[in-house]
C-alpha cells in the first residue's frame, strides 16, 4: 500500500446505471507501471468489489476497455497513468454517447447496429474454391482501403463526436470509416448499395469535420478523411445518376 498521500491517486469513478448515477472517490496507490485499467482493477480488487467495467485483451487489440478519462475517450489498457493524471487526480466515466449498463460498462449494441446498417461487411463474388485475388498493395485504391482498415471497434471516435450526440441516427465515424474501406476494396460487389446507405440522411453528410474521431482514435486512423472520401464519392454517384437519367 501507499506510504503517504503523495503516493496515492484520488480517483473519481462514475457509479450508477441506466437511470443515472454519481461520482465516488477512491484512493489508489501509485505504481511505476500502471495503466488506467490497472487503477480500476485495483479498486475492484481491493476497495469495492462491486465496481463494473469491461476489458478483454489488455493490450489494445480488442477495443473493449474504452472509457472517458478526465473527460477524454481513451483505451484504458494502453493509457499510462502518468500521461493523463493531473495533480494526482483522475476522473473516470463510461464512454459518452452510449447507454450505460452499470458503472463503467456501456451497451455497445447501437454502435454495432450502425456498423451493420452501413453495410459494414464484405460482399464478394468469388468463392472459397478459387484462388485469392491478385491485388497490388501499391494500387491507390488498395492503399485507401488499407489506411482505414485497422479499426478495433472501440467506439472512442463514436464517443468523441458531437454529431452523434446531437443526432441519434447518425451512423458515426467508425461505421462510415469501415464503409469507406470497403468502397475501396476492388473485390467487393455491394458498393452501390452501400453508397446508398452512406449517402442517406443518417450518413456521411451529417459530419461537420469536428475531427474528434481522428484526434482520439487510439490506432491513429482517420475517420474524417474516410468520411470526406465518402462525401466526394456520393456526390459523384449522384451526378452520374442524374446524367444517366438525362441521357436515358
Amino acid at each position: 500500500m501507499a506510504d503517504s498521500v503523495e503516493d496515492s491517486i484520488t480517483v473519481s469513478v462514475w457509479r450508477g446505471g441506466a437511470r443515472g448515477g454519481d461520482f465516488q472517490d477512491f484512493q489508489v496507490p501509485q505504481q511505476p507501471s500502471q495503466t488506467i485499467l490497472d487503477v480500476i482493477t485495483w479498486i475492484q480488487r481491493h476497495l469495492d468489489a462491486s465496481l463494473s467495467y469491461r476489458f478483454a485483451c489488455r493490450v489494445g487489440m480488442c477495443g473493449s476497455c474504452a472509457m472517458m478519462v478526465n473527460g477524454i475517450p481513451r483505451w484504458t489498457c494502453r493509457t499510462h497513468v502518468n500521461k493523463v493524471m493531473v495533480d494526482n487526480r483522475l476522473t473516470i466515466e463510461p464512454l459518452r454517447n452510449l447507454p450505460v449498463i452499470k458503472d463503467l460498462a456501456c451497451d455497445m449494441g447501437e454502435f454495432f447496429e450502425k456498423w451493420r446498417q452501413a453495410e459494414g461487411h464484405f460482399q464478394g463474388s468469388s468463392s472459397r474454391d478459387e484462388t485469392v485475388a491478385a491485388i497490388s498493395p501499391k494500387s491507390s485504391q488498395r492503399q485507401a482501403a488499407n489506411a482505414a482498415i485497422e479499426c478495433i471497434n472501440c467506439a472512442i471516435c463514436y464517443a468523441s463526436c458531437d454529431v452523434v450526440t446531437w443526432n441519434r441516427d447518425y451512423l458515426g465515424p467508425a461505421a462510415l470509416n469501415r464503409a469507406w474501406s470497403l468502397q475501396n476494396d476492388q473485390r467487393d460487389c455491394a458498393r452501390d448499395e452501400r453508397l446508398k446507405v452512406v449517402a442517406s440522411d443518417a450518413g456521411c453528410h451529417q459530419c461537420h469535420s469536428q475531427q474528434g474521431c481522428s484526434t482520439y482514435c487510439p490506432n491513429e486512423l482517420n475517420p474524417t478523411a474516410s468520411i470526406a472520401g465518402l462525401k466526394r464519392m456520393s456526390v459523384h454517384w449522384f451526378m452520374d445518376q442524374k446524367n444517366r437519367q438525362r441521357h436515358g
Partner: protein
Amino acid sequence: MVELRLYMAQRATAAIMAPLVLLHLGVMIYAIQGGLSADEILARTRGSLFWGGTYGLFVIAVSVHAAIGLRNILREWFRLRGPVLSVLCWLCGAGLLVAGLRAVVAVVGTP
C-alpha cells in the same frame, strides 16, 4: 436523400460565394478609407450591371446557404425535426432572399 442534396447545395453556394466575398472584402477595404458615404457607395453601384449581377448572385446564394446552415443548427442544437424544421428553414431562406433582393434594388437601381 434530402441531406445529400442539401449538402451539395450548401457546398455549391459556398463555392459561388467564395470569389464574391473575396471581391467584397477587397472592395470594402480599398474603398472605405476613413469612412464611407452614401454617395460614394451609390456612385459605384447605381446602374451597374456588374454590381447588380454580383450582388444579386450573392443574395440568392447566401439565402440558400444560410438557410441550410441554420437548418443544421436548429436540428442539432435545438433538436427540431419534421415540418417545424422545414418551415423555419424555408422562412429563413425566403426572408433573406426578399430582404437581400430589396437591398440590391436599392443600391443598384436608379431612382
